């Protein structure tokens, strides 16, 4: 069973966003990058599936700059067998462009299971899994919080508004992973040493034209200054007063 995990290198979640001079991208100076948090769940699930089946390969796949090698090396250290960086120097914000480029790769390098995070925490696109599945003709379940594989069919659980949905999905499939699905393992020293010898390939991404262009990127308006009402229990009546008559919130 060939399993591919789609991974994105993103700014760390504690980054304070600054807009670059072009007004269309973020200032990356001084920003540290990491593996997209949701992709960690996808990688862990890939490793769990491989362990369950007792065979197969886990390939970590990304599209981005060569600098993404660092994140991919981390994926190898955690247990992926192989990593591929489809390189581009462009900052890709168009999810369809990514889906199409990954679909092109996966058509040439077929896999039965493709896992990804439910969304990347930079562009928050939340659309890769369905888009990719449509292009590959695969089944798909998104935002899963529980996943079991038996006889080539997945049974997945996902949160919907006010309830949980149980979905079955045949393989080949693309599954997007939500927080709560598993507890990602971290790389240990042995894994880090092993990762140095694992294959990490680079190939130029086959990127189609973008389906959209950025007009502007802006910071949200700052909130008006608030105030400390007071200290301890004694401040409660003043808070109620303010919520009622000033904010009209209760």
């Amino acid at each position, binding site marked *: 069973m060939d399993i591919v995990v789609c991974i994105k290198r993103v*700014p760390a*979640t*504690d*980054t*304070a*966003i600054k807009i670059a001079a072009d007004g269309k991208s*973020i200032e990356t100076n001084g920003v540290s990058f990491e593996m997209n948090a*949701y992709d960690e769940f996808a990688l862990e699930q890939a490793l769990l599936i491989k362990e369950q089946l007792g065979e197969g390969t886990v390939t970590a796949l990304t599209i981005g700059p060569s600098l993404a090698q660092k994140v991919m090396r981390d994926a190898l250290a955690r247990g992926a067998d192989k990593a591929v960086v489809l390189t581009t120097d462009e900052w890709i914000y*168009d999810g*369809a462009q990514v889906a*199409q480029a990954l679909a092109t790769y996966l058509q040439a390098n077929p896999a039965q299971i493709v896992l990804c995070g439910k969304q990347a*925490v930079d562009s*928050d696109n939340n*659309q890769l*899994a*369905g*888009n990719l*599945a*449509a*292009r590959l003709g*695969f*089944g*798909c*379940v998104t*935002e899963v919080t529980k996943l079991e594989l038996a006889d080539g069919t997945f*049974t997945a659980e*996902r*949160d*919907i*508004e*006010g309830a*949980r*949905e*149980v*979905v*079955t*999905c045949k393989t080949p499939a693309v599954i997007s992973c939500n927080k*709560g699905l598993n507890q990602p393992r971290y790389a240990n020293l042995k894994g880090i040493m092993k990762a140095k010898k694992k294959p990490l390939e680079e190939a130029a991404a086959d990127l189609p034209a973008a*389906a*959209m262009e*950025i*007009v502007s*990127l*802006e*910071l*949200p308006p700052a*909130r008006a200054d*608030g*105030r*400390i*009402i*007071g200290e*301890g229990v004694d*401040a*409660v009546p003043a*808070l109620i007063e303010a*919520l*009622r008559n000033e*904010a009209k919130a*209760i």
Partner: protein
Amino acid sequence: MSNIIVIAEVRGGSLKRPSLEAITAAKQLATASGGQVVAIACGNGIDAATAELAAGGAAKVIAIDGPSFTEYSGDAWAKAIVEQVKANDGTAVLMAHTAMGKDLLPRVSGLLDTGIITDVIEVSCEGGAYGAKKPVFAGKATMTVKATKSPFCATIRPNNFEASSGGSGEVSKVDAPSGDLLSVVKEIIAAGGDKTPLAEAKVVVAGGRGLKEADNFKLIEDLAAAFGPGVAAVGASRAVCDAGWRPHSEQVGQTGKVVSPPLYFAIGISGAIQHLAGMRTARTIVAINKDADAPIFKVADYGIVGDAFEVVPALIKAIEEVVANR
């Protein structure tokens, strides 16, 4: 004609309100494009929902109806919808950014081999080019884009447009195709009790590590309950979800949910940048924290510096009185 398609969400026979909000966004685009709003709904026995769409602003409603569409299947529904998008000259396709919308519209856009923009808060159509605005980095920034490929697909953030009402559209029915399903919903398990969904709540009461242990979240639950049934939901910081005190579905912030309720309480939450991203657009923010220097006070409209275990019980009493005297 350049029609604006809205894929409506019908669950258990009823139309979900965010679909009517998507119709409002579609009407804005239709006014600029000169086309009509066409709603497409899938299911089995959905006459009531399609009537509601016709009375809610869709000029034309297409029901893809039949036993094979009783349960949601992303692949089967997307295929049937794409046929209708093409047959009805759809130049834009909108759906609410709900669990179903996030699953279905990307698949539709992939079959149409076009782009999609998700979680949209504003739409535009200028000189025939569709555009949209959406939060990125969990709301730390806002991106405005212009579509360069047709049709334009977008999921619309719930609670951001008014629900559309009024109209007398015409309803037509198409038999739901039967065939192999790659994926299909087998069961829907309702959340315990009558819990208000976090993203839809009018009030969110969120707790953090300042509550010291999981059992103390009773205070947070009691404050939420004080607002009366169906009003408030419990939220939590990443730290307490990661510690297993609360389920991940309650996490507010960059790797959790982004919420924008009229009133938000942050109790014992210091205000890490990831948490602030998830709640900074709430209309009114109240923070209760022992540490007067906690970053949460920088975004809070009203702050009380103090021990949550003393302040919150008094606050519960006060809110109960306000609610009782309404």
